């Protein structure tokens, strides 16, 4: 802690930068401002100490014995004196002191470091990461590239590519390889969209982490550098989320995205659009009932109708949906799983509360930030006053007063810093709320996968009913004609063919539906488990953070109160 004798540097007019370099340390503070202004603190991986692996939940809370007396006052100076570099690395300071239960170190702010998403701390999240095939995923080095083929504008539009480096666990590598393998590919945002779309198709019923937004407006409005950095960071986070997912983390789509050099070998979403055009061509044939084109092929059934080529199917399912809602007859198969319906309601409730909590968390963070800022401004004003009294002082009492204001000024500046550090940590902890709110989107998706699979089954069942009815009618009509009606009987045969095919399709669809239901079930369980752990971790981290920093702030002011206590005594 700063002793009162530490000299102020009063040679030049105190400006904000100078204020921060005053008194608390002799170390230069050139990057203080940038470190402080970014909401996510500068890369900590270098400075943070790995508190050791293993489940934090098993640890005795040793940091709770963090006593507020001498170690803390020593710690107050530690940030300044111990770290050789900038003394104001908030996370490293806090890490050393608290071993906080942060969910992740969001690396790479402002291009100071390459974004390296190395998880070092112990938290439920890192336990999941440890189970992933991927040891490291980093997104870095944004480059501008020219749009070559398909360029409508001569001179071309440009786009940004990112360098994605991945380190894979040795077991996942090919045979004959020992040790982790590194991959390095270049991807653009469009590729990410493709990846997300393909995953959505392949993993119906799963809670697939939502991809970063396209941000069309922001990309025009924001400063280029800021926007690119924001996107880079979001991409990194997204890829990590995918890698952590017990099922999707092992997917081919992800592997291909991370490892395949050159162009991303996944069908793009525009390809799907052209499939729709193909489907439009097919439609007339379907309507006239010509051959195999008329029926839904079993393999198609496992995909939702929308986005596919089969326009006829889309129409039928739409009709079915309307019948479900408005027709008087209950469909043959309905969502009956009580457990699911309960869980669904719970999810809706959770989403609502998360939304509110997320908002209030933002407000809280802002409140803490504001108070820290104002405290800093107050400190600055007092520093100016001190300097003034010192320069223009004539009487002895003025010297005393100057000394007093200096004490207060220093304390205020210190407290201001502590508030900001506190807040940086708070942001990290409460971020869990925002994350889970985002995850609710994935839950919606998964539930709607289920609903559309159900709809497919219902539609096929309706089809069957219709076909059977037609056969009945034809047979009834035909039986009235003596000797049978060959044309009608032929028709009946055709219809029976149709029925067989449709039965097949229906069985496929039911299998798919059951598969999706199973996925839903497993994912819901996983969500409950992980949410419990993550929330507990969040609360614990938040509380410990508050306790630690409040104790520090209390110390700072207790010293000042002590040093000015004579004024209270004199008054009495």
């Amino acid at each position: 802690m700063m002793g009162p004798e530490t000299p102020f540097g009063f040679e030049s007019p105190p400006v904000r930068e100078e204020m921060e370099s005053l008194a608390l340390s002799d170390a230069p503070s050139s990057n203080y401002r940038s470190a402080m202004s970014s909401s996510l603190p500068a890369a900590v991986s270098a400075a943070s100490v790995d508190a050791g692996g293993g489940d934090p939940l098993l640890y005795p809370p040793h940091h709770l014995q963090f006593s507020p007396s001498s170690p803390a006052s020593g710690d107050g100076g530690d940030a300044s004196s111990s770290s050789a570099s900038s003394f104001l690395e908030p996370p490293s300071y806090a890490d050393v002191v608290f071993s906080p239960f942060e969910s992740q170190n969001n690396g790479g702010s402002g291009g100071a470091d390459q974004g390296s998403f190395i998880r070092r701390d112990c938290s439920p999240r890192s336990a999941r990461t440890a189970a992933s095939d991927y040891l490291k995923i980093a997104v870095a080095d944004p480059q501008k590239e020219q749009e070559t083929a398909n360029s409508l504008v001569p001179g071309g539009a440009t786009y940004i590519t990112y360098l994605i480096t991945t380190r894979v666990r040795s077991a996942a590598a090919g045979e004959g390889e020992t040790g982790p393998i590194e991959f390095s590919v270049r991807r653009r945002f469009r590729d990410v969209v493709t990846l997300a779309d393909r995953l959505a198709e392949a993993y119906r019923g799963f809670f697939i982490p939502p991809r970063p937004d396209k941000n069309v407006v922001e990309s025009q409005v924001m400063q280029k550098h800021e926007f690119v950095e924001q996107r880079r960071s979001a991409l990194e986070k997204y890829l990590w989320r995918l890698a952590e997912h017990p099922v999707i983390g092992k997917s081919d789509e992800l592997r291909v995205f991370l490892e395949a050099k050159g162009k991303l070998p996944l069908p793009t979403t525009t390809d799907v659009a052209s499939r729709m055009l193909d489907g439009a061509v097919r439609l007339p044939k379907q309507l006239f009932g010509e051959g195999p084109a008329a029926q839904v092929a079993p393999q198609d059934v496992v995909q939702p109708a929308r986005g596919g080529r089969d326009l006829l199917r889309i129409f039928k399912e739409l009709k079915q949906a309307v019948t479900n809602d408005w027709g008087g007859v209950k469909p043959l198969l309905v969502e009956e799983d009580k457990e699911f319906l309960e869980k669904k309601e719970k999810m809706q409730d959770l989403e609502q509360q998360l939304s509110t909590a997320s908002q209030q968390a933002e407000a809280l963070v802002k409140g803490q930030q504001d108070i820290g800022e104002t405290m800093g401004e107050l400190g600055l004003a007092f520093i100016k006053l001190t300097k003034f009294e010192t320069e223009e002082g004539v009487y002895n009492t003025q010297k005393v007063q100057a000394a007093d204001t200096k004490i207060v000024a220093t304390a205020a500046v210190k407290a201001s810093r502590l508030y900001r550090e506190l807040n940086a940590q708070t942001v990290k902890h409460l971020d869990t709320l925002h994350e889970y709110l985002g995850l609710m989107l994935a839950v919606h998706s998964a539930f709607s996968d289920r609903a559309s699979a159900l709809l497919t089954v219902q539609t096929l069942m309706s089809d069957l009913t219709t076909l059977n009815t037609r056969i009945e009618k034809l047979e009834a009509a035909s039986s009235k004609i003596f000797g049978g009606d060959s044309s009608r009987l032929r028709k009946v045969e055709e219809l029976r063919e149709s029925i067989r095919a449709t039965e097949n399709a229906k069985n496929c669809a039911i299998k798919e539906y059951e598969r999706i239901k199973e996925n839903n079930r497993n994912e819901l369980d996983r969500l409950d488990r992980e949410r419990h752990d993550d929330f507990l971790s969040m609360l614990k981290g938040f509380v410990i953070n508050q306790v630690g920093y409040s104790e520090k702030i209390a110390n700072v002011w207790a010293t000042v109160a002590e040093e000015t206590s004579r004024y209270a005594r004199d008054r009495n």
Partner: protein
Amino acid sequence: MISPETSPPRSSSQSPRSPSAAPFLSISVTDPVKLGNGVQAYISYRVITRTNLPEFQGPEKIVIRRYSDFVWLHDRLAEKYKGIFIPPLPEKSAVEKFRFSAEFIEMRRQALDIFINRIASHPELKQSEDLRTFLQEDEETMERARSQETGIFKKPADLIQIFKDVQTKVSDVVLGKEKPVEETDPDYEKLKHYIFGLEDHLAETQKQAFRLVKRHKELGQSLSDFGKAIKLLGACEGNSLGKVFSELGAKSELLSIKLQKEAHNLLMNFEEPLKDYVRAVQSIKVTFADRANAFRQHCELAETTKLKEINLDKLNLMRSDKVREAEMEYRELKAESEQATRRFETIVRLMNEEIVRFQEQKTADMGLAFHQFAKGQAKLANDIADAWRSVLPKIEACTVSSQHG
């Protein structure tokens, strides 16, 4: 609050001391009560005087006073005691809506209490008859005195003075003296420079202090909202985790209250003293103006007297019959000039004493304000730490159970 204990009376004081106890004069301004209706509503205060000084009517006296009574006293003292830094009053006007808020009333009451006690502990001011009037006379007398002052009809002496001022201003212009005459004392220059600078710096600190109060209130509000939201979120979770959420939410709301309390403490015991000193510095500037006026008068009268003397000598030589008249005029003028010079010199002397006193008081008052500030912040931070710490056992319990469960 400033201690009403007076230091042993200075040599200029005439009051005999009672042998048994040290002399004291202690005043408190309490019990603000809203009186009147509508636009004419105002706040009245109880002013309780406790003293053993013989000039007063008894050991204890209680009167009812309102803000304009304090203004009357201030203005009378400012008129009579030139050269002394009259303690500042809280601001006259306030936004209508705010005028009767509990906070504003409390701030004003505190400021008035400090004001009157500062007067009571000032060696010169406490002997003022106006002070005794203020502390002892009944409300009707007070009202009469007040309305006399604020009337348009000023005393004849004042009118003459105003005329004289105008006269000198006009003659200045006529004589081509455009620049007002000013002192060139380097120490005084330094003092003026210091006071003007001090006002700026103090105003800045006061502004930030006020903002800090607001921030405390805002953070309190955020914590309260956050607590509620967390509780609701916890209701979605079950069992032990839900309990943790609930506990966290409850603590959050508790801390919100503590923050509001600290905001009030900051306002009354840190921001207000700073504001008080801004006003005090502004009051010193008034004294500067008084001194400048006195200096100007002294210079001008000295000048005019000299001219008259020269004229008189001329008339004497000429053996004019206007000599007698001129001599009378000269003698009058000389007396006035000497009076003006004395007035000026008194102001200078008083100011020198006052500035020392001011600095001492400032150090003590600000020191106390700092102490209160630091104490409040330390207590708040400790309360916050304690509140959050108390949640940890529940978190631990939840952690343990989730491992085994």
